């Protein structure tokens, strides 16, 4: 996997390849597999995302009772056509909530990059596919773009809340999604990496403070902001608005912020929302065994 977004763009320009091809060829080299095999595996990820979205159960509630049913409320609200955000953003919100809830309810999902942030990428990609009718090949290519960006973040910083807070999970998922959307919408390579940078910048510093240590509150709803933030960041980049701080430096900033975060807001369930009177009460009521 690459260690720099600028390097991916450079390789793409020098070898006159698309962002997707650069990531694909790197994967083939790294794992000594054929292009067909790599593409097949990534397509399976996309198919699994679709299946996970389709198998949402509106009646399911998580074992703790904290989350469930909200994705369906969003669907109902969307059908009333009274959303300030409009139908498309409403659909993205609905899908993000559904996937986050499915994860909390022990259904099968695709960790992208993590289980807690599994709703962000499918929310934007599946909604865009429904709206613009891209082929599955094209959607698979977009997943390569997302994975390439996530790979750079993993190499330069981290993807786990325990390592760098929620910015590392929802922030990374949002950055990956912003790049993928920009690729789908025909943005150039510079726009792709700047869309990622803009998305990540807006979520820097986000704490990982899950109530009772569970991947439920606030994780499920944070998938919504990750997804919507990816859309706005992509639109900005494609409008020609760039990040004043270069994309690789934004990732480095995330690392340094994560390193200086106290353990209480790095997935320990001890600080932030988890430490509120209500958060503590929930934890007390869930004592196990």
């Amino acid at each position, binding site marked *: 996997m690459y260690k720099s977004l600028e390097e991916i763009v450079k390789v793409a320009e020098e070898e006159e390849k698309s962002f997707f091809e650069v990531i694909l060829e790197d994967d083939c080299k790294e794992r000594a597999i054929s292009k067909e095999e790599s593409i097949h595996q990534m397509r399976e990820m996309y198919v699994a995302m679709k299946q996970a979205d389709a198998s949402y159960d509106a009646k399911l509630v998580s074992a703790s009772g904290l989350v469930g049913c909200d994705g369906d409320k969003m669907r109902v609200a969307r059908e009333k056509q009274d959303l300030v955000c409009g139908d498309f953003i409403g659909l993205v919100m609905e899908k993000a909530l559904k996937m986050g809830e499915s994860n909390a309810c022990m259904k099968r999902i*695709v960790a992208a990059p993590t289980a807690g942030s599994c709703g962000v990428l499918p929310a934007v990609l599946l909604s865009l596919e429904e709206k613009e009718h891209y082929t599955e090949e094209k959607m698979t290519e977009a997943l390569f773009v997302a994975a390439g960006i996530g790979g750079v973040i993993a190499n330069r910083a981290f993807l786990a809340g325990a390592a760098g807070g929620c910015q590392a999970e929802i922030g990374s998922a949002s950055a990956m999604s912003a790049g993928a959307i920009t690729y789908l919408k025909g943005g150039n390579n510079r726009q792709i990496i700047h869309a990622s940078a803009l998305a990540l910048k807006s979520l820097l510093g986000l704490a990982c403070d899950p109530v009772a240590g569970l991947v439920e509150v606030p994780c499920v709803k944070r998938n919504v902001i990750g997804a919507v933030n990816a859309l706005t960041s992509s639109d900005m980049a494609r409008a020609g608005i760039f990040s004043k701080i270069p994309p690789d430096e934004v990732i480095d900033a995330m690392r340094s912020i994560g390193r200086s975060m106290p353990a209480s807001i790095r997935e320990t369930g001890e600080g932030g929302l988890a430490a509120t009177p209500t958060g503590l009460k929930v934890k007390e009521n869930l004592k196990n065994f």
Partner: protein
Amino acid sequence: MNIMDIVGPVMVGPSSSHTAGAVKIGQISRKLLGEPVRQAEIYFHGSFLATGVGHGTDKALIAGLLGMAVDDINIPNSFEAAKKQNLLFSFQGIDLGDVHPNTVKMNLTGESGRKLEVVAASIGGGQIKICELDGLTANFCGDYPTLIVHNLDQPGHVTEVTSMLGHKSINIATMQLYRDSRGGNAVMVIECDQEVPEESIKWLEHLEGIKKVTYLSLEETECINH
């Protein structure tokens, strides 16, 4: 790590460490036992104890002991599956001291009566570590074919094992040695680049001073425990 770990894996939620990692611990422990598990006494420590039920860690671990994969949609129903497959299990809390927060200790009994005590940790992102086997340090991740030899702490046993591997053209990826006291019980943990043949493991088992040989094969259904 590769890009299919960034977008992926496909798994049953909600947590890579508390759910997918727990399934993996169960799977590898079952392989180490080398036969279907009939009885499992399970002790959860730290974060596994505090948030285990909320994350389905209990169901995930049983699913793994039954041989399910991390993306098996039947993981939430593993308790019912255990009943059908005659796996008796119990859960308790335990304080194992200064270990990883996501640690579990298990006393397993197989269908032939074989016993194995495992202490394992889920160290993040679905990665796991087997920390102890039968009370002695183990420290391996289950990503390689792994040979664990318990022997008396006497000269010559390391040579016996490594020459056998050499003769079989098996390359050693990593090797660790531990003992509880001078001349007492010792263990070698050897991660290999190739699978170790069953007859070589049987040969080792009969050597004087070798007390137990446990082998983790990555080839499905080829797990042996002597």
